């Protein structure tokens, strides 16, 4: 599906929207159950269990959970540090849940940021993510090279006073392509990533390499191309002195000439979007 044209009428979109909603529902349910003393491993396990109970059998990657300063990826050098640890949640700690299930052959990646208790700093970080969502959509519609959009996002983060923490992701990606995943009875994971999804990503990478584009949206030269039609799981991640916040959701890019149709967020009914709307009403 990598190179296929997608528009809003594409029959596949509802499938992706469903799995994205399911993933966010999972994160919200698990976040509501987080208490002091819960470890990252337990939180990741809770997400896994919640989704398995609802029919998820395969993963783009296994659920992650980061607590405290690990939400800002402080000192992350090797990819193994992404995996959940025995770090316990304490009152007043930020947390991020990151889930990417495969459901009925569709996949989505989501990121959910929260704080145990109330915290104005975390509110601020979340509120400041809104302009990133707008900036990304606007510049994608302008068909700017992905690498330049990446740099603009990073510049905006720095201007806001934050550090760009998705730099710490593998290849420094801010987004990766998602697509249909073949359903197999047996789909093992390698280093936490589902092999079926990896296969899709790999085949995209091979095809893309030939045509001069990449399924990973990164700050590197291979992302110096205009937006490629398809579905992108976009995850800008802010870091600020031991606190991190992110969202992750699917951006649909098409090759329509109509700017509105050329790119749009798959779903606007997500926790962080609702939150911004509520804040605007309150203000």
């Amino acid at each position, binding site marked *: 599906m990598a190179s296929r044209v997608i528009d809003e009428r594409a029959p596949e979109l509802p499938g992706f929207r469903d799995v994205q909603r399911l993933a966010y529902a999972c994160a919200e349910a698990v976040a509501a159950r987080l208490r002091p003393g819960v470890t990252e491993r337990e939180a990741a396990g809770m997400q896994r269990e919640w989704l398995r109970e609802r029919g998820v059998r395969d993963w783009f990657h296994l659920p992650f959970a980061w607590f405290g300063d690990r939400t800002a990826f402080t000192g992350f050098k090797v990819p193994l540090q992404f995996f959940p640890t025995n770090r316990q949640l304490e009152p007043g700690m930020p947390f991020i849940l990151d889930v990417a299930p495969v459901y009925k052959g569709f996949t989505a990646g989501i990121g959910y940021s929260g704080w145990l208790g109330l915290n104005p700093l975390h509110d*601020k970080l979340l509120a400041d993510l809104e302009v990133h969502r707008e900036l990304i959509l606007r510049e994608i519609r302008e068909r700017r090279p992905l690498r330049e959009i990446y740099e603009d996002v990073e510049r905006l983060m*720095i201007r*806001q*006073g934050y550090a760009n923490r998705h730099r710490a992701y593998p290849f420094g990606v801010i987004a990766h392509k998602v697509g249909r995943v073949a359903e197999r009875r047996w789909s093992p994971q390698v280093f936490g990533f589902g092999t079926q999804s990896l296969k899709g990503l790999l085949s995209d990478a091979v095809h893309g390499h030939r045509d001069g584009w990449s399924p990973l949206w990164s700050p590197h030269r291979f992302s110096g191309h205009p937006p490629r039609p398809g579905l992108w799981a976009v995850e800008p991640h802010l870091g600020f*002195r031991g606190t991190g916040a992110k969202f992750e959701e699917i951006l649909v890019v098409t090759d329509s000439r109509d700017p509105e149709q050329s790119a749009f967020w798959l779903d606007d009914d997500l926790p962080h979007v609702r939150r911004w709307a509520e804040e605007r009403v309150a203000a």
Partner: protein
Amino acid sequence: MSLRDLPGARERRVATGGIELCVVELGEATRPTIVLVHGYPDSKEVWTQVARQLAERWHVVLYDVRGHGSSTAPVPLRGGFTLEKLTDDFLAVIDAVSPDRPVHVVGHDWGSVQAWEFATVSRTEGRIASFTAMSGPSLDHFGHWIKRRMARPTPRRVGQLLGQGAKSWYVYMLHTPVLPELAWRGPLGKRWPGILERLEKVPPGDYPTASLPDDAAHGAWLYRDNVRARLRRPRPDAYAHVPVQLITPTGDIFLSEHLYDELDTWVPQLTRRSLPAKHWVPRTRPDQLASWINEFAAANEAALQGGIPVRDTAPKGAYADRFGGQLVLVTGAAGGIGRATAFAFAEAGARVIAVDRDAEGAARTAELARLIGAPAAWGETVDVSDEAAMEKLAEKVATEYGTVDVLVNNAGIGLSGSFLETTSEDWKNVLDVNLWGVIHGCRLFGGQMAERGQGGHIVNTASAAAYQPSRALPAYSTSKAAVLMLSECLRAELAEKSIGVSAICPGIVHTNITATTHFAGTDAAEEKRLRNRTSKLYGVRNYPPEKVAEAILRAVVRNQAVVPVTPESHTARFLSRLSPGVLRGIARLKPPL
């Protein structure tokens, strides 16, 4: 006390145990009470300036300890100064001035030693709301401290014992009979004010008072009646039943900082503060003391009313004990090193003024600083090279926020290109910001610090380019070398005012400076290419500005003169001293751009 110095002061006498104490009250009696207890050989006048500031918000009570100032002395003197009797006095005073409300106690020197007794004995329970201790340990804690070190002597512990033992020379002297009295009533009493001015830099004023020789002679019994007895048999149950704020002057020649190493075991709710000053802080640092006492007492009042406990409100960043409640001004605070520095000070609990010509960026720094721990933060829009604007800012800061405790002259711009291609306009721009900006900052805010006479610190951001010549950065390096030399000269001059000056030489740090650096002798397209190229190189080096901020805070705490930060800056500094020829050789290389 000269009532002239304390407008609205009311004097009364309180009778207790056969003596009369002279008690002075300031401020409205309906407000919560702060009791200030003086040390040896002082009288309540030592508190004049602190009391005056606290009286704006509190009911302030001072009294002369028995045998001092206008209070009468016990007869006979021997046995009349035990901590038990001093506790009786204290209870009599607070029964008179605040019969139905617990009071906040502040003690300095022997006042603090006494107040430790008040804060740890059961008969004062419920009568004290908080205790601020400075330069006076609990004799019981001190006794245990010595015992622990004697029982298990390690080299470090023996060192601490010997160190404190040497600092306590005057305690042994005071145990000799008659001689101390003779000295105080004779030459020592006469010379004491001069000694204080010279050694402690205590500014002249209403202290010491004329009663000094008598006070000091009587006060010798404070030592004789208590020290040996308590150090030999310290109370095993000397736990504080009130929250304690410990203020440690780091330059105290009588008391070692290590005395308080194990204090957490005795005090469940302890807030630590440290102050780069000598022993007589009530005279030399009244503003800082008043601000900390005010803050701590207010937090405890709120806790009494059922708010959050004081411990949760205390800032937790590095050096929070040192910078909590101080006023810090940072220029160039809209990004890079300036912003990171503002945040680091904010985390330590300082009030922050973020100055930058980018108004939005400065406001944003201030807003985030508040979110991470600054009790207050303001963004100010000023171009540091504009003298008139800087003067206006200095005036505004002085009237609205107070005197700056730490000034960080960080604003700077980059300029690259060979000397022959650098126009005089380019020179003017870079010197205006990088050098004149620092001069204006030091002159205006440093001037205010010096005028207040209560210490402070100035940090100037120079650069590794200050000692590393380069064919690519003649103007920039010149401006930074000037900043370095300016800092060193200023350090020499301001040392006598207890104002420290540090020059920070970061090196290659990942900030925005490369994105705005002007490349002399290039057209717009070439300049853009070079900016991108250098930004990328700096990005690859990826040294975070937060580490420079850490170095800045450390430099202030340790009062370091010149601080290279990155390894390359250290290397350049080392070579510039060991073999400058090597650096000159490197300077000839064309940069890889």
